[in-house]
């Protein structure tokens, strides 16, 4: 494997800036800790390989998110082939029950519930929601996903409404 200092330098910068976001994406894509670690490694390797041909077609942030999400999507496709398919957010009626012991545990439970919900979504909904949770605006999400800004905004609206409904129903149980 030939050394490419530019590629290595770009990767180190990107990993420092976006490593936590990649970890969160891996967590939202895979529940099993060991497989999640493998997925995260695949994301990092794919990112490093892709940066050999970084051509400035987009910002580094967009580049990193695209690579990470494409790796996650391919991974989930492979896992799902042969199993039951993903569902749209409208078909998810209930979130798993949470045991409420303390604020910290509640927050941790809520994050895990959210990740459990995200894992069930179809690819496009999953990608839009995880990018939205990274605080990206509709225009940035559109650039990463290739959807129109209008389509992104509509999806976010629908996803937020369904999430609010799901969490509200769980809280009232």
């Amino acid at each position, binding site marked *: *494997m030939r050394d490419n200092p530019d590629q290595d330098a770009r990767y180190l910068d990107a990993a420092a800036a976006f490593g936590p976001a990649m970890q969160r994406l891996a967590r939202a894509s895979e529940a099993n800790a060991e497989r999640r670690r493998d997925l995260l490694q695949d994301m990092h390797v794919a990112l490093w390989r892709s940066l050999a041909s970084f051509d400035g077609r987009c910002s580094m942030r967009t*580049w990193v998110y695209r690579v990470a999400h494409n790796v996650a999507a391919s991974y989930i496709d492979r896992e799902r082939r042969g199993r039951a398919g993903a569902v749209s957010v409208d078909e998810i009626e209930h979130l798993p029950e949470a045991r409420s012991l303390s604020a910290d545990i509640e927050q941790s439970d809520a994050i895990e519930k959210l990740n459990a919900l995200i894992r069930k979504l179809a690819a496009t909904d999953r990608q839009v929601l995880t990018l939205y949770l990274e605080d990206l605006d509709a225009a940035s999400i559109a650039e990463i996903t*290739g959807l129109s800004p209008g389509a992104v905004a509509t*999806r976010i609206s629908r996803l937020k409404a369904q999430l609010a409904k799901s969490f509200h129903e769980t809280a009232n149980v």
Partner: protein
Amino acid sequence: MSLAEIHTHAERFQSRIRWRNAIEYIAAALVVAAFGWMAFAVPVPMVQAGAILIVAGALYVCWKLNEFGRAATKAELDKATSLTDFHRAELLRQRAALSTVWRWYLGPFVPGLLVFLGGVAFAPELDAPSAARFSIFATGLGFTGIIFAAVGALNAMAVKKLDAEIAALDRAA
């Protein structure tokens, strides 16, 4: 991940692809070896001709698998395309391979199998009545036909699933 770990994982990824290709070539080599031997060892011209045609079919399938593999590797390298473009390209690539399976995977073996089975069933050296010969030929043909039909049907189902996914992706954009 450290750069050293990245480099190691990237090299392992390349190794996995080389192994996957090697397994395909080994399988083809076994078919070529088996039927190539028959082409020399079996003193029945029609069986020899059938064996040679099967070898040619196996080599053609090998070449096509290599072509598809190179396209897949090229696609792997460009993970920085937008999510919908990447996902769509993946689905289209898979669809192209599956929907043409008769042309590049099953079809190349048909001439050779017909001639080979005919050679086996109608060889002058086989001391059997015509009805028995036709029975041997029909049984061989039927058995092969069932396998080919099953492979074709499974692929057709997979193509339908992919078409639905592509349509959903186009609607989402």
